[in-house]
């Protein structure tokens, strides 16, 4: 190192070694990269802390690179340790383990140093949240050294907390650069005695965001006057290259310095002091201001503008937009500084005026439109003033650009400009200007718009003015519209009413209730169309009150369909209980079709106060009304209507039964399931055939309602004297019974008669068994029963159940039954079917044995089909030779062409490459040709890439046997593998 050191004594009496003499520039890159020893670092480190720590401080130094690995990582690690150790400011724990960020580990620390990390050192949201909370909520410290801004790109909150993301480094490790101590009076720059510092170091250019001087306080930055700015890749939109900064983040403090690439940084006394101060600041020991320095930020932005403006000149439609993107960034950054905004607006305004003045043709329109938009975005008085002359320009597209931009500006100045132009601009521009005044809800424009609407009635501009009055919607605008309504010609009357309705709605929303009511009433009484009357009615309805309610109900009962339609829409949505009562009252004397509509509305409103009325209607004589009431009970009912609904479900006409079932299933109120269970119990006690259908409905409702608590009652219902009830009960149990009911259900199988009931019972047993969490226990109940039961029908049932349960244990039980032999025919039949239909491939050997041995033709066919199906299922441990052999055996076992075709169909399903020759083998059998072709094509398609040769060979044969469609497919497969037909 050839820096010249001098001593500076700080006011607190701490001796610090500092760098001076920016003129001495002899460091070469090689020297800068000399690995410093701990002693060298220690020698360069300050003797004592900037301030004594308020309490013992602990710093976590995290150095896990997941992207670029900076060789200086260990040096930095060591340096921070030494800074703490030597000065006694803090102790350190150095780590590369993300687990240290778990809240329980992190809590022992006062600050974290991100030492040249990169990539995504951790992605676990808990770790990330933990660090965010550590800084933001717990008020701890975060320090970033150099590469820290290259890390966690996929975690925007990190970048936002630290203050920036690295973009590029136009100045590399060997470059000599000069830094500017921007904030010389700041405690964290006390280490730097001179206003600049020249050194050899890699310097970052940060991404456009989240870096913003509005969010942080820059301490040190690149001195662009004294540094080589001709380096390639320098493209920051604001020419701002910060180096060190501080900021507060929530309760916490952040210090970052982009220095730290070269080893020499860590033996640079001033920089070490700067780092130490930064860490002490982050720890909360060294108090330092963090407010952004607005005047500097403003100066930077203002300085950057001319170059950015220059760059967008000459923009034409379709050209590259990079220059605009840079200006966009600059303007967006300016949004933080009103003074800069105004300056920018003035400058952009000048450029726009100049462009417009020089325009020969529409060639500059793209730039003009762009600048106008930017002025709209800046939104200042200056912007409005710059846009004003364009409103009268002869080029209509310029005037258009101007009024669109003015529409974006909230400042009063824009309103002034637009109002002035409304009278002075060419008539064809007035519509646009009037519309924008409406968009801005410019209340001062009301008189102007009113006279435009009246005086030029019938023109586009007048129409625009009319609607703008509706949009502005002040009492004055309402008055103007009202006047117009009296005088306007019938052609524009509809437009005036439309505007008045819009106006009145806004007035109502904004608290001018009385005025709104007057307007709506008048429109309702005078409007020329039902559409407008309906809107006025809705407007009144939304204001509430008994009078308006009466109007709505009258419209609902009346015979104007458009008003009735509006009334229905309102009554369906409104939630005022008084409206509900009014509906009920009105319905009591209404004709049936209105009653039906009203009942639906009451249901939609969930009008529980109307339950008595609806219940009464549900028992009335008028069929259609009764049906509507039964439907409404689904929404309004409670446990008190369960009996009524169940009996309608049991005995009504088909539509009524369906509606009653739907309502019974839908009632939301509490206690409904209990009510159903009580009724079920009661009906069972005085059971008679006449109540059976009633119980069936109750049981079905329990299933529909997914009433798991009803399982015990359902088990009882499964022994009901009525077969229909038993059947429904088992169906419900299949849906609701848990695994622990399997045993009981198995026991019930014996009573489950007739066959239709037994079928449901079997389903219930299987469903409940499959709900047992222990797979190996699923067959237990059925197996145990099989050991005891003698009745052949019951045995067959158990066997079917085992087949469906499909566990290895179930299969074993089935095999055992087969080996015992000598069963009733019914049982034998069930056994064969259970094996043939077994869900897994494990039953294949048994099915094959059956297919080989069975003397019963039907059983043999069933077994063969089952075996083929199972053989087509994928299994891991079976060689392709063995598979092929088994298919051949099955083919040989087939007793007719139908079975052979079936086997070829299953083969096609396998999609196994090795079976292609098997399919090809059968091409020549005329009876099987079609199936063989189909199977071969299916398999060839799957294997054309893995075995093109075998495929080619097979396709030649397939082609001969195939019909036209088949040959097309052959061609398709050939083209898929790029194989040409051989000559």
């Amino acid at each position, binding site marked *: 190192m050839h820096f010249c050191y001098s001593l500076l004594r700080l006011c607190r009496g701490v001796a610090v070694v500092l760098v001076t003499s920016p003129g001495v520039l002899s460091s070469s890159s090689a020297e800068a990269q000399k690995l410093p020893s701990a002693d060298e670092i220690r020698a360069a480190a300050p003797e004592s802390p900037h301030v004594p720590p308020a309490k013992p401080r602990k710093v976590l130094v995290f150095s896990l690179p997941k992207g670029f690995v900076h060789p200086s990582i260990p040096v930095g690690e060591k340096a921070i340790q030494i800074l703490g150790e030597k000065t006694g400011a803090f102790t350190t724990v150095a780590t590369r383990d993300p687990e240290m960020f778990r809240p329980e580990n992190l809590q022992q620390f006062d600050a974290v140093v991100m030492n040249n990390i990169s990539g995504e050192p951790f992605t676990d949201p808990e770790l990330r949240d933990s660090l965010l909370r550590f800084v933001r909520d717990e008020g701890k410290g975060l320090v970033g050294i150099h590469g820290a801004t290259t890390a966690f790109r996929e975690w925007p909150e990190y970048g936002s907390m630290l203050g920036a993301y690295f973009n590029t480094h136009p100045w590399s490790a060997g470059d000599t650069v000069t830094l500017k101590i921007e904030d010389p009076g700041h405690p964290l720059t006390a280490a730097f005695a001179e206003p600049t510092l020249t050194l050899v170091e890699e310097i970052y250019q940060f991404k456009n965001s989240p870096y913003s001087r509005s969010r942080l306080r820059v301490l040190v930055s690149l001195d662009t006057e004294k540094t080589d700015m001709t380096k390639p890749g320098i493209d920051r939109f604001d020419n701002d290259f910060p180096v060190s900064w501080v900021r507060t983040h929530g309760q916490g403090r952040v210090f970052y310095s982009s220095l730290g690439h070269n080893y020499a940084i860590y033996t640079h006394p001033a920089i070490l002091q700067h780092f130490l101060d930064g860490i002490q600041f982050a720890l909360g020991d060294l108090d330092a201001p963090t407010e952004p320095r607005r005047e500097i930020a403003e100066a930077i932005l203002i300085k950057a503008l001319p170059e950015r403006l220059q760059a967008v000149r000459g923009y034409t439609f*379709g050209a590259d937009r990079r220059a605009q993107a840079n200006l966009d960034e600059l303007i967006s950054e300016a949004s933080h500084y009103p003074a800069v905004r105004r300056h920018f607006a003035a400058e952009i305004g000048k450029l726009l005026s100049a462009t417009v003045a020089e325009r020969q043709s529409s060639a500059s329109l793209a730039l003009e439109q762009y600048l106008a938009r930017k002025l709209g975005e800046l939104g200042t008085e200056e912007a409005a003033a710059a846009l004003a002359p364009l409103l009268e320009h002869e080029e209509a597209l310029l005037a258009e650009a101007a009024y669109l931009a003015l529409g974006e500006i909230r400042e009063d100045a824009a309103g002034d400009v637009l109002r002035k132009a409304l009278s002075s601009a060419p008539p064809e521009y007035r519509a646009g200007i009037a519309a924008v005044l409406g968009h801005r809800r410019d209340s001062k424009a009301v008189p102007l718009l009113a006279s435009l609407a009246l005086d030029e009635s019938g023109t586009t501009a007048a129409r625009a003015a009319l*609607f703008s009055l509706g949009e502005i919607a002040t009492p004055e605008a309402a008055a103007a519209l009202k006047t117009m309504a009296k005088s306007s010609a019938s052609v524009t009357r509809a437009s005036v009413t439309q505007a008045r309705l819009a106006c009145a709605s806004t007035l109502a929303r904004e608290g001018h209730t009385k005025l709104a009511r007057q307007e709506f009433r008048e429109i309702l009484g005078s409007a020329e169309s039902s559409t407008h009357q309906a809107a006025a009615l809705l407007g009144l309805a939304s204001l509430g009150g008994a009078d308006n309610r009466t109007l709505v109900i009258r419209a609902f009962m009346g015979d104007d*369909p458009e008003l009735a339609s509006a009334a229905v*829409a309102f009554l369906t949505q409104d939630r005022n209980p008084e409206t509900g009562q009014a509906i009920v009252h009105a319905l009591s004397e209404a004709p049936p079709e209105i009653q*039906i509509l009203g009942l639906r509305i009451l249901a939609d409103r969930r009008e529980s106060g109307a339950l008595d009325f609806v219940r009464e209607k549900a028992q009335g004589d008028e069929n259609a009304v009764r049906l509507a009431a039964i439907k409404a009970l689904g929404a309004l009912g409670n446990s008190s209507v369960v009996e009524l609904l169940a009996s309608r479900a049991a005995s009504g006409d088909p539509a009524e039964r369906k509606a009653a079932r739907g309502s019974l299933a839908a009632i939301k109120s509490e206690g409904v399931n209990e009510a159903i269970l009580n009724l079920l119990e009661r009906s069972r006690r005085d059971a008679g055939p006449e109540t059976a259908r009633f119980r069936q409905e109750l049981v079905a409702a329990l299933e529909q309602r997914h009433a798991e608590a009803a399982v015990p009652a359902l088990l009882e219902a499964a022994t009901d004297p009525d077969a229909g009830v038993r059947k429904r009960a088992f169906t419900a149990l299949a849906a609701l019974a848990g695994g622990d009911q399997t045993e009981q259900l198995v026991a019930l199988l014996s009573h489950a008669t007739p066959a239709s009931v037994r079928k449901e019972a079997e389903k219930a047993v299987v469903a409940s068994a499959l709900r047992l969490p222990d797979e190996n226990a699923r067959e237990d109940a059925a197996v145990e029963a099989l050991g005891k039961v003698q009745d052949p029908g019951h045995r067959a049932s158990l066997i079917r159940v085992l087949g469906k349960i499909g566990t290895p244990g179930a299969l074993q039980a089935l095999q055992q039954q087969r080996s015992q032999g000598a069963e009733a025919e019914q049982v034998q039949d069930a056994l064969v079917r259970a094996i043939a239909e077994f869900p897994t491939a494990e039953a294949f050997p048994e099915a094959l044995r059956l297919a080989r041995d069975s003397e019963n033709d039907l059983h043999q066919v069933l077994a063969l089909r089952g075996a083929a199906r199972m053989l087509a299922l994928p299994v891991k441990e079976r060689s392709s030779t063995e598979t092929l052999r088994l298919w051949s055996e099955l083919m040989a076992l087939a007793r007719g062409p139908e079975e052979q075709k079936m086997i070829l169909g299953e083969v096609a399903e396998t999609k196994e490459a090795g079976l292609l020759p098997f399919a090809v083998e059968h091409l020549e059998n005329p009876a099987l040709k079609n199936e063989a072709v189909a199977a071969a094509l299916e398999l060839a398609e799957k294997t054309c890439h893995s075995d093109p040769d075998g495929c080619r060979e097979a396709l030649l044969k397939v082609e001969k046997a195939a019909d036209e469609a088949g040959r097309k497919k052959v061609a398709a497969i050939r083209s898929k593998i790029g194989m040409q037909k051989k000559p």
Partner: protein
Amino acid sequence: MTINRREFLKKTVWAAAAPLILPASALGRNGSVAPGNKITVGFIGVGWMGTTNLQNFLNRDEVQVVAVCDVDGKHLSEAQQLVNGHYGNSDCRACVDFREITQRPDIDAVVISTPDHWHTIQAVDACVHGKDVYVEKPLTLTIDEGRVLVDAARRYGRVVQTGTQQRSMSQFRYASELVRNGRLGKVHTVHVEIPPNSRECEPTWTPQAVPPHLHYDLWLGPSEWAPYHPQRCHYSFRFNFDYSGGQVTNWGAHFIDIAQWALGMDNSGPVEISGKGEFPVSGLFNTATKVHYECLYENGTRLICTTITEEGRNPNIRFIGTEGSVYVTRDVIVSEPESLIREVIGPEEVRLEQSSDHAQNFLDCMRTRRRPIADVEVGHRTVSVCHLGNIAMLLDRKIQWDPAREVFVNDPDAERLKSRPRRAPWRV
């Protein structure tokens, strides 16, 4: 053909419960709807999406398509032929100006499938002329437009269905019911993944002559004039902020919609939004090419929307709760633990409205005057979240939103992006 509108309404509205009160003899043969009771529909926008909608409605017996409208003469004549071919007559009227449809007295409903910058103008005009409206998603171009449209629909008592048909797909309803009923525990995070752009554009472009069959000025409508280029118009208009909001609104309208549904936020929205998007700085497209925005709801739930990075992955939504998670696409629903998606939602629990056919739901609501499943307010609130995401990404910072008042909290720059002035004579 002329149908007496009042007669029609009498038939439909009165019998809001028509099938209930009409004896079978009042219906046509085979129980079909009697011809006089058909709903007459006009189609505004019959390009790619519009034609899909047209075919859907043509196949419904209760509908009679009576007019089609498009600013592209090619689309228009193809659609007219499609309709006339379907009915075997030549009654379908074709027009270039949508007002011929919205202001025609004998039309009951309009189906709007134009680019987004037209939706609100056309839908509002239909409402104020007493039509019901089926309007494609994304519902609006700006947040303010949505409020204007909802107001117009309410003011005139119209049925307005947003074309977010995932509300009528059972797996999305079921997933939302699981969330609403706490089957996932407390849902702390919802992650929506949307596809990257489905079209690319050259870095520079040259203005081109307007094709003779295109009424370009009407195509631009309320947007600022700009020279014609094919990439500005059909289909790829959605990647230009002048006319749409990119995939953020295009796919967001579908999947954010499900998030809003499941979180019970159909009348509300998030309170804080932050975003980081990548925007192209060359070419005609300017909407985000890489999307990342996050919304915070008042109850602490986070909604994250990002661009899919994994090849071949479909747009999806994932609900993550303290007791499990559910992942849903248009094709699959999976959960962790697996048993979650086998649970049955009982009658005493929160049940969401059921619809299995989005267009049918609209037609049913026309007769009953109920609000449809993707009611205009729902569509507005959903696309508002998408617009908020775009605004946060454009401003490149966190924004605070007051969903009750629908204003930003002390943020004039964000507020400015909530609405846009329109080129005369177009307005809402």
